[in-house]
Structure formats: structure tokens, C-alpha cells
């Protein structure tokens, strides 16, 4: 049964680890992200409408558009959800049991960091997911990197914070300041068999352009290469550093300093920022379209 988009947006959390982790990025991209939750609330904030009949009409059109599979919104939502859940090492249930019982250090005894190669593939797969999902939502052809890069230059609010989280939580924290160069070199040296065993890649591989793993890897490499310049400039312009990130995260993840590899793994498991902000991006675009079409 298909998901009800209004319930998905209504159930977006107002707090918790994901929201706190994303808020910790506010220092670098001040005022960009407001955690917009609730379907009707999103309609009101995005369109500025207050008329109840209009809100109802916008909502109904948005629901109809989402439910039409050909429109690509369901696949985009699935991509944002899947890339997050596939990248986690442990089930969220296991994690939930431990939160609140242990300090971060106590918790760390039970997990092991990801090897650098797995972390690199995660970063590349998440980036390519953004390309594909964003293109599905906005109607840009999925393999059109040039159009995606133009759109990326205009990213704002939840889309921009998602990219900030990508470079921070999946780039700088686990791989260091030179993460983009390091990752690009690593991907270039990989063979299709290297990515085929990666959980994150396995989760979404059917949606990555390309007929086989070889061509999918080549699209991933091309995506990374094209966006590397944007990522490097973004990190430099916003002054994002490992120590800056740790200072902010340290506020709520006790004892995380000095345990960078573990922190990366911890964030991977517990922070579902792609799903959270991806749903918000999807809801915004869907509503923007609905209000225009009615």
C-alpha cells in the first residue's frame, strides 16, 4: 500500500538526534533551516496561504500528485529513506535501547567504525542519491548533471542543510578536511566488485543511472567529480572544520571528541538526515506545484 504523504510529513519529528544534529550545523549556515513539519503547516509556510479552503485544495492536489507513481515523488521518497536506513550499521531498535542508558563512550564499546572504503562509498552513494532524487522531484532528467549543478547553486533551506550534513557528517567527520579529494581518488581506484558488496549501494542501485555496476560506478564517479568543486567551495565559504563540527556535536553527544571514526559510525546509525530533509524538500516542491496547478 502506498504511503500517505500527509501522514509522512505529519510524523516528521520535531526533536531528537536527527533534528539536533542538523541544528548543530546552524553555525555554518545560519538561519537556513527551520525544521518545517506537519502537512498543513508546510502548506501554510510554503505558500503563505491562510484560507482554509485553499489549504484543503492545495493539500488534495498534492496528495493526488504524490499518489500518481509516474510523477516520481514516491521513488524520490523511497530513495531518501532507503539510503539512510541502508547506511546504518545496526538496527534503530537496538540503538534506541541503548540511548539514555549509556554515555556515548559506553555505547561505543558496542559498535565498530566503518572501514574508510565503506565510508567513501557511502558518501558517493548518498551524493548520487541526491542527484537522482532531486531530479525526480524537480523534473530534471536524472542523468543531467549540468542541470543538477545549476540547481545546486540555488539550493536553500532543507536542501542546503542536507548538503551541509552530507559534507560534514559523511565527509569531514569520518574522512577529514581533505575528504573530497580523498574520496574521489578512492572511487576512481575502485572496481565494480568493490561497490557491489556495499550495503548502501545495494539499497538503491536500481535507481542509479547505468545498466550494470560498472556504468553505475562511472556515473557515481562523474557525479562526485562534478560536485567536488561545489563541495570544496561550500566548506571553505562556510568555514566548516572538523573541530568546529565537534564543538557543536559535543553539546549533545557526550565524549565524542577524539573518537572521530566512532562518531562517524554513530551518526550514520542514529541520524536520518537524508530521510528527514528529503521528505521536507519533497513536500515543499509538491506543494509549490499543487498551489500553482489548482
Amino acid at each position, binding site marked *: *500500500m*502506498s504511503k*500517505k504523504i*500527509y*501522514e509522512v510529513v505529519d510524523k516528521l519529528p520535531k526533536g531528537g538526534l536527527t533534528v539536533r544534529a542538523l541544528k548543530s550545523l546552524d553555525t555554518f549556515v545560519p538561519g537556513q533551516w527551520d525544521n518545517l513539519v506537519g*502537512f498543513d503547516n508546510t502548506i501554510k509556510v510554503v*505558500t*503563505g*496561504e*491562510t*484560507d482554509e479552503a*485553499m489549504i*484543503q485544495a492545495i*493539500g*488534495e*492536489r498534492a*496528495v*493526488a*500528485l504524490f*499518489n*500518481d507513481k*509516474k*510523477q516520481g515523488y514516491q521513488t524520490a521518497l523511497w530513495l531518501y529513506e532507503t539510503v539512510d536506513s541502508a547506511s546504518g550499521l545496526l538496527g534503530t531498535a537496538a540503538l534506541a535501547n541503548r540511548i539514555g542508558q549509556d554515555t556515548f563512550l559506553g555505547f561505543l564499546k558496542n559498535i565498530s567504525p566503518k572501514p574508510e572504503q565503506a565510508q567513501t562509498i557511502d558518501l558517493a552513494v548518498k551524493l548520487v542519491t541526491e542527484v537522482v532524487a532531486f531530479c525526480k*522531484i*524537480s*523534473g*530534471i532528467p536524472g542523468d543531467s548533471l549540468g542541470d543538477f549543478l*545549476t*540547481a545546486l547553486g*540555488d539550493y536553500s533551506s532543507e536542501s542546503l542543510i542536507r548538503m551541509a550534513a552530507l559534507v560534514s557528517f559523511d565527509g569531514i567527520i569520518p574522512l577529514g578536511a581533505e575528504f573530497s579529494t580523498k574520496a574521489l581518488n578512492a572511487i576512481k581506484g575502485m572496481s565494480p566488485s568493490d561497490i557491489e558488496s556495499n550495503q548502501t549501494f545495494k539499497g538503491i542501485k536500481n535507481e542509479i543511472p547505468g545498466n550494470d555496476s560498472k556504468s553505475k560506478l562511472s556515473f557515481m564517479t562523474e557525479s562526485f567529480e562534478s560536485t567536488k568543486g561545489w563541495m570544496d567551495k561550500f566548506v571553505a565559504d562556510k568555514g566548516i572544520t572538523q573541530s568546529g563540527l565537534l564543538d557543536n556535536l559535543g553539546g549533545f553527544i557526550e565524549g565524542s571528541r577524539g573518537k572521530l571514526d566512532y562518531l562517524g559510525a554513530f551518526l550514520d546509525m542514529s541520524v536520518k538526515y537524508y530521510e528527514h530533509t528529503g521528505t521536507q524538500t519533497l513536500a515543499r*516542491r509538491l506543494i*509549490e*506545484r499543487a*498551489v*500553482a*496547478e*489548482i
Partner: protein
Amino acid sequence: MTLTRWLKRLAPLVLCFALLVTSCSSTPSRYDQVQKDTTGFRSPAAVDKKAEKGGTFNQFFPASQGDYQVIPYQEKKGFAEYKLKRGDTTVAMLTINDTISLPVAAEKYVDATELVSGYPSVGQGTTATGLLVNGRYQVKVLSRDSSFGKAERVDWLQKFDLQGLSQLQGKAVVRPKQPAATASPQSDAPVATDTVPAKPRFKLPKVQVPAPEPTLQPAG
């Protein structure tokens, strides 16, 4: 005593049962009906097969000008949208859509009393002004900033290449009545007489041809 003890034991069970029952049924929503109507076998598509490609509309959007930047935002079948920015602020969204997928959107123009560039125009809600070309293609400007009001929306509606859009060949979805008057603040917009695009090589939809007999104008 025994009864109290039994009640005490039963209370958690009753509570658990109540929670289970309530958690199984989700809260009713104002969107449940449309959800039901648009899912499942044989549910109607949200976008009509005959709808124009979104890409077709791109050429009719205004270009960036002065302090304003016009930036591509979305392009789906039957729909295209651009963002209108002044500096870093998004002041409005500019859109064109094919109402063949949602005829009710076109129907609101049937009794329109205002004209913009000769096309029937209506205000919708508190932030949108639209017009309808050829009884089918809806052009809208939607405010996103308080500095951008109705006058600005009407001004930007006129910057679209409406004449170019009117040359698309799609059949009309509705036939708007000849508007009786133009009301302010749109009264300075060109009136109905200029609606017919001059290029003869295209067959014009009947709805756009002005009535041959003079229409009644309000006195004064």
C-alpha cells in the same frame, strides 16, 4: 478485597488493550477521501496523457531583468515553474500549467470579470493571481514576500510571452465568457481587443475570437 485486587491486575491489561486499539486506527484526516480516490487499482492519473510537456512552456517565461532574476525551479509534464528572486529574496513563483489534467482549475476563469493582457484573470486565495490562455493554459504569479503584492503579480503576468503561449494547439478545456468589464488595478492592462495573436499560420481556438457584435459595457 478480592475484587479490588482483580481490578488492580486487570487495569494494565485494559490500558494495553485500549492503547492497542487506538494505535491501530490512525487519526482521521481531511485528506483521507482524496487518498482513497487516488490510490488503488484504476485510480485516475494526476496528470493527463495529453498534457503538454513542461519543457514546452519554458520559452514563454519572462527573462531576468533589472534587479530580478528568473531561475528555473521545476519542470514536470504539464507544468513548469520559475523562481523570481530580487537579491537573495524569493519574491514570487512564476508558473504555467496545462489545465487538461485538472479542468476545475480552468473553470474558475469562466466567470472572470477581470482581464490581464486581454485574458481572463482571477485572484486566488491571498497570494496568487492567474490568467487563462486559450481556455486551457494557466499562467500564475504567486507572491512569496510581503513586498510583492497584487499589482506586482499583475505586472509580472504581463511579462510572460502570452501571445506565444496562445499559439499552442491544445483544445480548450473551458470557454470563458466574454468579460464585461475590467476592474482596477488591472484596468490599465491592454483590453480584450488585443487578445487575438496576429500570426495567421496557426488555427486559433474559437474561444479567443472576440464576439462580432458589440458587448454591453457598464454605464459611466
